[in-house]
């Protein structure tokens, strides 16, 4: 770890990493350096059961990047620490390693503001910059605005944030400033939305949408979490204001899972219900089928978000509505 952290030093360290890897690998097939973006991860140390490095390693197959992890812990002014290294993987059956650059910077909450000028020198030119706020508490930090200014897209995970409504307000505020914003809680409901959409691919059922008068969303937490809220808002804004969206607690776990969605109309009843850890039953009137819901990892959610570099108009629409207050 260096004590005087400077962008030029870190870039020099990266050059040395590449030189030494090139020498080591020259006889076995070489190293392919891959980079499609700068991904800045803002993380409070020990705030998450899975180390951020593990998630980034899973991501690099699909979204190779220069990943800059900023680990934040402790208070007071303290010198920054940093190191640069490479994450590599060997595609099956190939001789050439594929490697991505990674830079790790350690900072206290109070020193976070000092990281921003260093980041400016570390961003890969001509490629997108994405800020992933893994620990939403860091949005409270006064330096946050400078971090978000560096990025074209800001990704947060509101599931992990205690005061979701406050965070939702912040996300809406970012979005209103034309910053591309996304919330992994929204990403979590893609497959629920996808299955609902699939039901209405049947042209005969499209006419029945306007007859849907009740939507019931069952969730496993004491309060409807952000995912349930987003789903409720999304459904209501498509079906219409006359539709009554209700939330119910099913089970008592703290996993914030949606357990079931039911749509009731005049001649249509749709129910999508979890029946196991990886299966949901889909019932449309009398026809019952099932679908697979694999356990979603953090990297799955990020993978989906990083594939959408531009604005997500559906999410922007959803952000235009206030969360349900009486549930």
């Amino acid at each position, binding site marked *: 770890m260096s004590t005087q952290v400077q962008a030029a030093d870190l870039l020099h360290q990266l050059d040395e990493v590449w030189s030494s890897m090139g020498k080591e690998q020259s006889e076995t097939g070489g190293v*392919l350096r*891959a980079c499609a973006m700068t991904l800045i991860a803002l993380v409070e140390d020990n705030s998450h059961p899975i180390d951020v490095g593990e998630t980034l390693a899973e991501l690099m*197959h*699909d979204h*190779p990047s220069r990943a800059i992890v900023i680990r934040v812990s402790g208070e007071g002014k303290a010198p920054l620490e940093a190191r640069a290294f490479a994450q590599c993987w060997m*595609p099956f059956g*190939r001789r050439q390693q*594929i490697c991505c650059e990674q830079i790790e910077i350690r900072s206290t909450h109070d020193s976070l503001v000092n990281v921003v000028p260093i980041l400016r020198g570390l961003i890969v030119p001509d490629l997108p910059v994405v800020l992933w706020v893994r620990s939403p508490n860091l949005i409270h930090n006064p330096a946050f605005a400078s971090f978000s200014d560096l990025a074209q897209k800001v990704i947060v995970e509101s599931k992990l944030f205690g005061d979701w409504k406050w965070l939702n307000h912040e996300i809406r505020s970012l979005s209103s400033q034309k910053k591309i914003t996304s919330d992994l809680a929204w990403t979590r409901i*893609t*497959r629920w*939305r*996808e*299955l*609902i*959409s*699939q*039901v*209405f*691919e*049947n*042209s*005969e059922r*499209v*006419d029945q*949408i*306007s007859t849907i008068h009740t939507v019931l969303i069952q969730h496993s937490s004491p309060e409807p979490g952000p995912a349930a809220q987003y789903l409720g808002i999304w459904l209501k804004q*498509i079906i219409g204001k006359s539709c009554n969206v209700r939330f119910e607690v099913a089970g008592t776990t703290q996993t914030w899972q949606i357990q079931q969605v039911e749509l009731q109309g005049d001649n249509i009843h749709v129910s999508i219900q979890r*029946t*196991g850890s*990886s*299966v949901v039953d*889909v019932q*449309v*009137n009398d*026809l*019952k*089928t*099932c*679908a*697979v819901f694999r356990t979603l990892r953090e990297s799955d959610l990020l*993978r*989906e978000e990083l594939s*959408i570099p531009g604005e*997500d*108009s*559906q999410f922007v629409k959803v952000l235009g509505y206030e969360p349900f207050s009486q549930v």
Partner: protein
Amino acid sequence: MPETNPFQDPLRFERRVPPCAIVIFGANGDLTLRKLLPALYRLAYERRIPPGFAILGNSRTEMSDEQFREKMKEGVEKFLEDSPFDEDLWNSFAQGLFYVAGDITKPECFETIRTRLDEIAQERSTNGNVLFYLSTQPSYYIPVVQGIGNAGLHDNPGWTRIVVEKPFGHDLDSSMELNQAIEKVFDESQVYRIDHYLGKETVQNVLAFRFGNGIFEPLWNRRYVDHVQITAAESIGVGSRGGYYQEAGALRDMIQNHLLQIMATVAMEPPPAFEPDSVRDERAKLLRSIRIMKPEEVAQNAVPGQYGPARIGDEEVLGFRQEKGVDSEAQTDTYAAATFFVENWRWAGVPFYLRSGKRLPKRVTDIAIQFNDAPHSVFADAPVNSRSGRGPNLLILRIQPEEGISLRFRSKQPGAGMQLRPVSMDFNYGSSFGERSPSAYETLLLDVMAGDSTLYTRQDMVEASWKVVQPILNSWAETKFDLPNYDAGTWGPKASDEMLAQRGHVWRVP
């Protein structure tokens, strides 16, 4: 309320398809077991097919719905790639599988199918959408289409489509005969002729590469391209397909369809939009622009080959004539190579070399675009550090097994002096996009259910490509060749190298 589905989110959801019933003729065959059912199950796993989805299998073998489901389950478990088999999902998927035994040459078979389709439409809410899939032996295509027409099965409350597997005839005349039978029952817009090569991700990527970037297209013409090589090599022999292959041969089996379609994709003009008819119009135009060989030109521009026995490693490999079901005097081409020219302003004078063969050293399909040398070399005294001495700039579009794109160019060798050496810039499809690529059948089945014919061939394309190979077929049928003319495990007959040598070119070793 709008007519389209307001819940759609094209940014995040994969393309969705409406409910439908797929009627598979030849449902007891290998294609259904190895390709179709695993692909359909995989689509269900990815949540891409709707709740109201059904498959009605047909073949001569007596089977109940339950027995059919059991048999299909075995196939899916055995041939499913890249995804786990989920018992719960299978049980749900299998509820949509039905079977009706019957002889497709008899009208009553189609009456039974009609009855089952009506029941399925009620039970599964398929909206009367029906997709017929011809997975039988090609000789049954016409009877099946006539049976569908006579029973009025093509007249449904929803949409009706038909998928025809290759071969689309065995020559120009039989292709036209098949088409006449089809068009008596179906409109061309309902007919989906499947060429699974066009469903491969990297063949589609050729379009993305050419028309999604601004820097390559200006070089994509006779001014900058010296020649193009398209190779589809297989390391295996004919195996159990000896009987079929003996009648077909490499020219019919690969070049007439797959390789000419690839050539059309590589050489076609930009379509005005990425829409089915725009893309297919351009492909068809290109195929019609290929110069038809005169009989006296065939010997110079087309080479047949047949593999003989050889020892490859520790294995004694049979020659084609020793394979099961093959005539010991067979004149079949297990290798074919041809030189084609496109008669338009873009490509005039640029040779397109196509080759395909069995028992070649490795399984590989790629397209190599050899660019011209620099007009004047300022490094005249610097020897090119290349074994072949071939021009330095080569663009390779790799289709299988390792899908990707490589660009070869010259670079200065480190150190004193000005020694140049070729280096390669590689893009690997698999490692750059870690997501699993859908199989060609998944793509094509989803497309036909969604009514997207972009990756399917049209009758005018089929006829144009038969016209291109017909003179070669005619000439080869009249000639007795001294076969076998290449050893198994080699890159084909010498005559093929000579075909390129007459224009100063050499086959690259893929």
